[in-house]
C-alpha cells in the first residue's frame, strides 16, 4: 500500500520503529525483572564450576620420622565415549588391554556406555600413564589422583593397615586414626571459559584442611629385625602362623609388632583375609606354661611360698579330681624356683592349690587377662577368663598352667612387662604423637600406668627365677651372649574340633625381657603349629635371643651420653 503524503509516510515509519522499540523495551523489562534470577543462575552455572578440594591425607611415620605411609600423585585414566570417533575406538580396543592389563571385553563395555565420563582405570603407574599419553587421543584423558603408598612393602603391614581406593582407611592404624588422617575437604567456585574449561581463577574458596600426621612408637629398624627373625622361624618350622611383639616394658610403647603370614601393602588386592588378620591382638589361644609367671608372682606376693621351699612333683603323675596331670619329665622334690625353671605342671598346680581359686583369679585380673589392653589398634579382643564360680574341679590344675584360659599375644607381653618394670601394669600404645603438616604437635601420647600388680621386691624375685629359666631351665636357647635375659617357655596343646587336646598340634611360645638388671625390651614370640619340633624352648626361645641381641645392640649404639650415664646410675642404685 503506497502512502502518497510524505508526512504520513514518515509517521508510518516512525510507528513501525516505535512498535519495534516498545517490543524491545517490553522484552528487556521482562528479561530484567521476570527472568533475571533464572538467567543469573544459568550464567553462574556456565561461568562457574563448584569443585570440592580434596585434602591431603596425613602421612604415617615411625618413631625416627621415617615415612611408613604417604601419598603420591598418580594418574587415573578416563574416556568420554560420546566424543569417541570410530577410528579412536578401534585404536583403544587394540591398545588398552596391553597397557592397562585388562580384558578386551572390559574395554568394549566401558566404551559402549552412553556417558560423557567413564573411568577406565584408577591410579595407574607412570609407565602406563606415559603409554596412554603416547596414543594422542582427545577423547581419552588423565586426571591426577592421590594414591596411598607404603615404601616398606610388608613391613609393619598389620600395624599400618591400608587405605582403600578413595583414600579411606580400611585396616590397622589407617582405620583407627581415620578422622585425624583424612583431613577436611574444602571447596572453590572456579571460573570457566567459553569452552567450559576450568580456569585457575575463583570467586570464592574455602581451603581444605590437610590431614594430620601420625608418629608411631614403632622403630623401623627394630620392626625389620623382628620380622626377619619371625620370617625365618615361620618358614623353618612350616608354621601355620606366628607373631612377635617387642615392647618397652617401662612405658608400654610398642617397638615392633609383626605376624606371619603377611602381605604387601602395595599389592593387597592379591592378599586374602587370613593374611590381613592381626593375630597378635585378634587371635585367642591357650598360653600354656608361659602363664606360670602369673601363678608364681601371685604365690610370692601373697607370701604363700618362698623360692627355696620344696615341693614334691609326684614323679611326673598327679591326680586332680578325675584327671591325671603329667609333667613333660618326671621330677621328685624341687624347690619352687626349680618348679618354674623346669616348668613342672604338678609343682605349679600344688602352689595354685595353696593359693586358692579366688586369690589366683585376683592376680589373673591384676595382670590384665580377660580385658582388652586398650591399645590404639582396631579389632582387639579381650581374651577369655572365667570366674572361679564357673571353674570345674580340674580348673585349679588347668588354669595355673595356662589351660582353660584364652589370651592374646599382647596380653602376654604386657604381663611379662609387669615383672620387668618392677610390678606396674602399663597400657600398651603404638602412636606417640599426632602433628600437623608443619610439625606442630596436636596431641601427644605417653606412658600410662593402669595399676600396680605386685611389689618391687616380688618383681625382683620373679626376675631372678625367670633368669634361672634361661640360665638353667627350659629356656637355655634364649641366652644372649654378653647380656642377661629372663623369660619363660611355653608348649601348649591346641584344641581339636571335638574339644580334646591335640597330641600333634602345639603352640610354641616364649616371653621374656633383657637385660635383666635394667630391661630395655620385653618380647613375646608365638609360633602356631610348628613342625616337626614344637617345644617353646626349641622353636620360640632362639627367636627371642636373636631379636633381643640385635635390638639391644641397636638401642645401645643410639644411646646419648646422658642416657648411658642415667642407665649406669640406675644400675648403681640397685
Amino acid at each position: 500500500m503506497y502512502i502518497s503524503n510524505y508526512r504520513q509516510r514518515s509517521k508510518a515509519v516512525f510507528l513501525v520503529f516505535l512498535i519495534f522499540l516498545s517490543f524491545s523495551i517490553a522484552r528487556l523489562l521482562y528479561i530484567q525483572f521476570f527472568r533475571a534470577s533464572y538467567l543469573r543462575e544459568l550464567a553462574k552455572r556456565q561461568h562457574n564450576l563448584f569443585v570440592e578440594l580434596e585434602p591431603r591425607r596425613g602421612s604415617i611415620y615411625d618413631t625416627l620420622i621415617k615415612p611408613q605411609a604417604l601419598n603420591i600423585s598418580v594418574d587415573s585414566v578416563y574416556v568420554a565415549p560420546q566424543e569417541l570417533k570410530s577410528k579412536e575406538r578401534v585404536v583403544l580396543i587394540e591398545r588398552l588391554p596391553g597397557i592397562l592389563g585388562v580384558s578386551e571385553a572390559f574395554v568394549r563395555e566401558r566404551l559402549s556406555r552412553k556417558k560423557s565420563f567413564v573411568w577406565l582405570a584408577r591410579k595407574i603407574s607412570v609407565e602406563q600413564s606415559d603409554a596412554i599419553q603416547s596414543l594422542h587421543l582427545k577423547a581419552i584423558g588423565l586426571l591426577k589422583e592421590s594414591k596411598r603408598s607404603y615404601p616398606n612393602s610388608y613391613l609393619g603391614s598389620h600395624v599400618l593397615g591400608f587405605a582403600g581406593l578413595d583414600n579411606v582407611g580400611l585396616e590397622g592404624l589407617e582405620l583407627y586414626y581415620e578422622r585425624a588422617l583424612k583431613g577436611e575437604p574444602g571447596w572453590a567456585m572456579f571460573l570457566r571459559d567459553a569452552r567450559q574449561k576450568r580456569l585457575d581463577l575463583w570467586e570464592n574458596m574455602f581451603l581444605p584442611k590437610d590431614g594430620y600426621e601420625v608418629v608411631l612408637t614403632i622403630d623401623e629398624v627394630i620392626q625389620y629385625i623382628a620380622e626377619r627373625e619371625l620370617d625365618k622361624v615361620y618358614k623353618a618350622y612350616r608354621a601355620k602362623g606366628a607373631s612377635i611383639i617387642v615392647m618397652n616394658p617401662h612405658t608400654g610403647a610398642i617397638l615392633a609388632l609383626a605376624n606371619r603370614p603377611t602381605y604387601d601393602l602395595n599389592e593387597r588386592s592379591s592378599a586374602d583375609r587370613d593374611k590381613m588378620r592381626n593375630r597378635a591382638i585378634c587371635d585367642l589361644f591357650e598360653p600354656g606354661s608361659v602363664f606360670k609367671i602369673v601363678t608364681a608372682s601371685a604365690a610370692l606376693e601373697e607370701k604363700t611360698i618362698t623360692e627355696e621351699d620344696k615341693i614334691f612333683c609326684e614323679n611326673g603323675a598327679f591326680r586332680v579330681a578325675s584327671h591325671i596331670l603329667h609333667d613333660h619329665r618326671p621330677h621328685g622334690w624341687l624347690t619352687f624356683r626349680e618348679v618354674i625353671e623346669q616348668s613342672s605342671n604338678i609343682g605349679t598346680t600344688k602352689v595354685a592349690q595353696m593359693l586358692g581359686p579366688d586369690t589366683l583369679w585376683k592376680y589373673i585380673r591384676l595382670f590384665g587377662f580377660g580385658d582388652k589392653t586398650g591399645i590404639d589398634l582396631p579389632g582387639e579382643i579381650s581374651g577369655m577368663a572365667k570366674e572361679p564360680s564357673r571353674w570345674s574341679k580340674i580348673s585349679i590344675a588347668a588354669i595355673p598352667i595356662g589351660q582353660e584360659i584364652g589370651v592374646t599375644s599382647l596380653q602376654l607381653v604386657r604381663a611379662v612387662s609387669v615383672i620387668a618394670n618392677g610390678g606396674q601394669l602399663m597400657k600398651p600404645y603404638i602412636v606417640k604423637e599426632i602433628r600437623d603438616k608443619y610439625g606442630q604437635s596436636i596431641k601427644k601420647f605417653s606412658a600410662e600406668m593402669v595399676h600396680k600388680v605386685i611389689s618391687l621386691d616380688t618383681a625382683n624375685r620373679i626376675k631372678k627365677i625367670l633368669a634361672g629359666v634361661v640360665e638353667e631351665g627350659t629356656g637355655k636357647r634364649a641366652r644372649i651372649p654378653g647380656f642377661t635375659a629372663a623369660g619363660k617357655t611355653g608348649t601348649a596343646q591346641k584344641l581339636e574340633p571335638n574339644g580334646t587336646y591335640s597330641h600333634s598340634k602345639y603352640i610354641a611360645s616364649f616371653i621374656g625381657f633383657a637385660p635383666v638388671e635394667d630391661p630395655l625390651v620385653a618380647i613375646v614370640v608365638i609360633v602356631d603349629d610348628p613342625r616337626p619340633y614344637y617345644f617353646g624352648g626349641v622353636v620360640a626361645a632362639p627367636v627371642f635371643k636373636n631379636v633381643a641381641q640385635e635390638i639391644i645392640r641397636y638401642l645401645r649404639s643410639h644411646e646419648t651420653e646422658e642416657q648411658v650415664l642415667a642407665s649406669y646410675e640406675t644400675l648403681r642404685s640397685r
Partner: protein
Amino acid sequence: MKLPKFVFVISLITFFSILYVYQQVEVFRLAYVVQKRQFASDDLLDRNILLRYNIRKKASLVRLGDKMTQMAEFQMPDNFRLVRFSLAPDTLHARRAGSFRKTFLTRVFTSSQQPEAKFINP
C-alpha cells in the same frame, strides 16, 4: 557545539568499555598462562615426590635385606662380634721387618717355607 561534545562523550564511553573488555581478556589470558605453568610446576613437584618415594622404596631395609640374602658370595654368620684391632705404626714396621728376616733365614737354612699369615695393612 553539542555534536562534538556528544561525540567526545560517546568516544570516552567506548574507550573505557573497550578497556574493560581488554582487561577481562587479559585476566583470562594470564589465567591460561598461570594454569599452564601451575600444571608444569605441579607435575614437577609430583615427580619429585614420586622420585623420593622410589628412592625410599629402593633403600628400604626390606629390599636391601632381600638383596643381601640373594647374594651367595656375602654371608654373615648367625653369631658374630665386630672387633677392631689397632697397632702402633712402629710395632707394625718392626713386625714386617721381622717377618722378612725370618723368611730370608728360612730360605737359607731350610728347604721348604712354612705357610705364614701376613699382616693386613690396617
